[in-house]
């Protein structure tokens, strides 16, 4: 049984027929062809697949594509606008918030939601809000710095 799904991903309308068991992350990567969203675990721990669905950070590995029918989705590919990096992306670059880059898309989108909810986060808040995103390279130090950088620069822009 295949079912039709329609969604808007990074401003582009997409529609396909998919098996109900197709996870949203596989839909995005294999069917739509956006490979910036990564799969790092099987159990919703690592957060490498974090995307925004209707503005909320969600692990795309723990959702079937059919559940996201009608949704508006932002993946890492859709965050920079007109070639201009989002302040969070810029912060990760400025503060060396990444090494191998595999967890980075999920980290950035988790940070995106974090700064929406807590525009001036404390270090503790940043660390608590990153509970669902694992990084094996950075020891988190520069990720915290990157998010702090972004918070400062986003506050400046508002």
């Amino acid at each position, binding site marked *: *049984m295949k079912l039709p799904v329609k969604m808007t991903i990074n401003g582009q309308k997409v529609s396909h027929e998919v098996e109900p*068991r197709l*996870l949203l992350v596989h839909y995005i990567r294999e069917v739509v062809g956006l490979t910036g969203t990564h799969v790092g675990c099987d159990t919703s721990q690592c957060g490498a697949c974090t995307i925004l669905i209707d503005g909320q950070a969600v692990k795309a590995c723990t*959702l079937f594509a*059919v559940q996201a029918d009608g949704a508006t989705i932002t993946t890492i590919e859709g965050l920079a606008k007109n070639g201009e990096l989002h302040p969070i992306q810029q912060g990760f670059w400025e503060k060396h918030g990444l090494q191998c880059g595999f967890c980075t898309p999920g980290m950035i989108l*988790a940070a995106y*939601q974090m700064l929406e909810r807590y525009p001036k986060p404390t270090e503790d808040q940043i660390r608590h809000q990153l509970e669902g995103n694992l990084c094996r390279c950075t020891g988190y130090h520069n990720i915290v710095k990157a998010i702090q950088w972004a918070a400062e620069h986003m506050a400046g822009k508002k």
Partner: protein
Amino acid sequence: MYPAAFDYHAPKNVKEALGLLGKLKDDAKILAGGHSLIPMMKLRLAQPKHLIDLGKVPGLSGIKADGKALAIGAMTTHWEIESSSAVKSKLPVLAEVASVIGDPAVRNKGTIGGSLAHADPAADWPAAMIALGAEMVCEGPKGKRKVGVDQWFLGLMATALKERELLAQVRVPLLPAGSGAAYMKFPHPASRFAVVGVCAAVTLDKQGVCTKAGVGVTGAGTKAVRAKGVEAALVGKRLDPAAIEAAAQKAADGVDVQADLQGSVEYKSHLCRVFAKRAITEAVKRAGA
């Protein structure tokens, strides 16, 4: 990760959902937030033939307050509870519990009803539901029925929810004046489920004597339980540190503590007592504030 194939159903209302449940019976599973079920399906530990997604059923989510209780739709997400102004003003301990479930992305999708129906022994909500004396509102072919929390958790991942029913709402009574509640948890270092979690709610009279106490313990055993011994030891006492300490000593009584990588029976029983003490102490502090 590819779960086994299944058919997907997205009913438009509760009646349709109940109809599907009636028709498909054992072969069907209800899909709420999916954060318990989908990981099990990915590992093929669960292989339902049909999924009935409640995501598109209106009226199953949202938080309403009446004079006596908060009525929380089963499909209300942990984040909605964590961030709800009604919750924060009327029953802030629920926001506290929600804020330590999983992680932010999990809280955005995971639902209170899904958690209570799944009844994972290490879930956070059960401790709070027990401490606060919540009622589960189930809907089935014969209409609605309420189940008190003490009748809800039957065993490991087993609840009083019947085959053709779905959990529609959770009613959590508000605490009277002079009350305080707190949730204290020892999180699993990897999964962040509760190795042990204790929720305590106490009501104090003007003299500071405890008139009512609810204490729920999750994580340690095969199901969350009411720490009756602790409650009995609290009621009628002025809750000074010694009284709290003495009451907390009974926190593991009646818990079928399970040993695993996170701890022996001895250690987890000890944690029950430590976190009972901490939760009660904090609840008493809040009651006084």
